[in-house]
């Protein structure tokens, strides 16, 4: 067991039926009357944002302003712009409706406002912030993957160098996260599958990285089981409410897990692939997971072996000899990804998402500077990252 660990999760979760309709009373309890709604163009177009706004309005709370132009791969400049907008509109709280990019952007905006700064760049770091002014902050995730609604980290791209910057502080965590299956029901099968795999990566890396601890592993292993049992059903049938709800909860639990124990090389390389080659985060996670697990195997066999029952069930795991369980865990991950690929065609290789091989050197250079790599079970230099990329090609 680790000789020392910290665990923090102060997010109030509103989970299940009619959860959206409770946002108004929660904001009222936080003393807010003028929330700024944050979302993106797609969610506005398909009506997801208006579902949330209508739920709030039905309980007598109208947004003071709406900003719905957050791009897929948001940046520090977007954060700074929205902070100015918030001040101009005289808002008193933030409600973010979206996936990872929207939520992380909202976290950044909240940081800028609570720390009373103009530029978020000055706030990057690790545990280096004081609490600051309290800006009430509600998050409504629309994917079941990022877990960002419960994490103390925001990952935002720096336009000037394309690098994804990390802002790590418990004060990044939202006050309230709303898990309502109406938000994920319309998610297409491919997005359901890849975001589900993203959640699986969070859980597996949280349980096996150097910062893993008993509490984060409790959340992580429970999340792995829920994902293994439900991601295929949710992908096959998006209307399966039970599977959708399980995936949303699993994503949240995986978020709590990795927020308290970090992630690892899958994320370090995935962030770099996103920054350099614009590979969507969840897709990069899906592709890289088995290859990084194989790379880590020599240093993490015990950790992976312990995950087997959570991946395949106790009965099946029991029949696998102890010394073969780590490899069996990797095989289970590969089998799951292949099954999802057969259902909806999620990409399994970097060549499928048009990553040019000549970008590998740049990706590796960025990846070794990513904070997630520091706690990976096995160290990796640029040459080793390129080996992983080649294996994933």
């Amino acid at each position: 067991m680790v000789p020392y660990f910290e665990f923090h999760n102060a997010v109030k979760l509103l989970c299940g039926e009619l959860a959206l309709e409770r946002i108004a009373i929660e904001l009222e309890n936080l003393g807010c009357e003028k929330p700024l709604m944050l979302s993106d163009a797609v969610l506005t177009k398909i009506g997801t944002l208006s579902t949330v706004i209508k739920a709030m309005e039905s309980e007598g709370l109208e947004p003071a302003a709406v900003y719905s132009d957050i791009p897929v791969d948001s940046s520090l400049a977007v954060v700074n712009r929205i902070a100015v907008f918030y001040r101009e509109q005289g808002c008193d709280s933030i409600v973010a409706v979206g996936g990872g990019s929207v939520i992380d952007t909202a976290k950044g905006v909240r940081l800028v406002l609570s720390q009373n700064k103009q530029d978020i760049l000055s706030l990057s770091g690790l545990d280096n912030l004081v609490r600051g002014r309290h800006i009430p902050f509600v998050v409504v995730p629309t994917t079941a993957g990022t877990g960002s609604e419960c994490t103390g980290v925001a990952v935002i791209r720096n336009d000037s160098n394309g690098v994804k910057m990390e802002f790590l502080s418990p004060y990044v965590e939202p006050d309230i996260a709303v898990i309502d299956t109406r938000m994920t029901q319309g998610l297409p099968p491919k997005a359901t599958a890849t975001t589900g795999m993203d959640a699986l990566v969070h859980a597996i890396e949280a349980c096996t990285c150097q910062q893993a601890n008993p509490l984060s592993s409790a959340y992580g292993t429970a999340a792995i089981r829920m994902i293994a049992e439900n991601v295929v059903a949710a992908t096959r049938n998006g209307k399966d409410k039970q599977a959708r709800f399980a995936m949303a909860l699993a994503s949240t639990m995986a978020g709590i897990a990795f927020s308290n124990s970090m992630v690892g090389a899958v994320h370090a390389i995935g962030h770099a692939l996103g920054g350099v080659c614009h590979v969507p985060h969840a897709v990069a996670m899906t592709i890289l997971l088995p290859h990084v697990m194989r790379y880590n195997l020599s240093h993490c066999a015990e950790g992976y072996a312990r995950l087997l029952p959570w991946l395949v069930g106790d009965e099946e795991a029991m029949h696998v000899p102890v010394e073969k369980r780590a490899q069996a865990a990797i095989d289970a991950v590969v089998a799951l990804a292949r099954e999802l690929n057969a259902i909806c065609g999620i990409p399994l290789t970097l060549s499928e998402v048009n990553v040019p091989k000549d970008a590998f050197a740049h990706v590796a250079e960025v990846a070794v500077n990513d904070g997630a790599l520091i706690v990976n079970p096995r160290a990796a230099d640029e040459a080793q990252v390129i080996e992983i990329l080649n294996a994933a090609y």
Partner: protein
Amino acid sequence: MRAIQSLVVAIVLRVVHAALVELRELDSRVAQEFARMPEGLSYAIRTGHRGPTLFVEWNGQEVLRLRELTNPGCALRIKSMPLAFRLFTGQMGLAQAYARHAFTMGGEVADVMRLARLVNIVEAYLFPKIITRHIMTDVPETEVNFLRAYGRIALGFLTCKYKFSR
């Protein structure tokens, strides 16, 4: 006890700076890290409450040791003196320190990663493998004999090579 720990940490911080200066010339990986490092990047390492500090800056040619640094590119603060003592006496690696929430950091995580790689190489020279095996998942190989590194550092101290630049 704190006074002794503080004294040891102060000495090791000086040695770390000296090792960076010397290994930049002896070890190709250290040389490459500095070659890629943005010119003007500075690190402030503070330990505990008013404990020893190390301020260094890469000016593109030399690793300067500074008396003060008001606006460092990367500011690390080890949270307590016992933690700093463990970190700088080979009882805990930088990755382990990160995993155990032993420090806070202001600046870009990428700059901590650069420092972590450099410190790992420095420790591979300064400490025997029996120690480094316990504090790193993978210990970097030394490119030259550690005695050569120690010799150059000792000579550097004798000739006052590592004095404050400003």
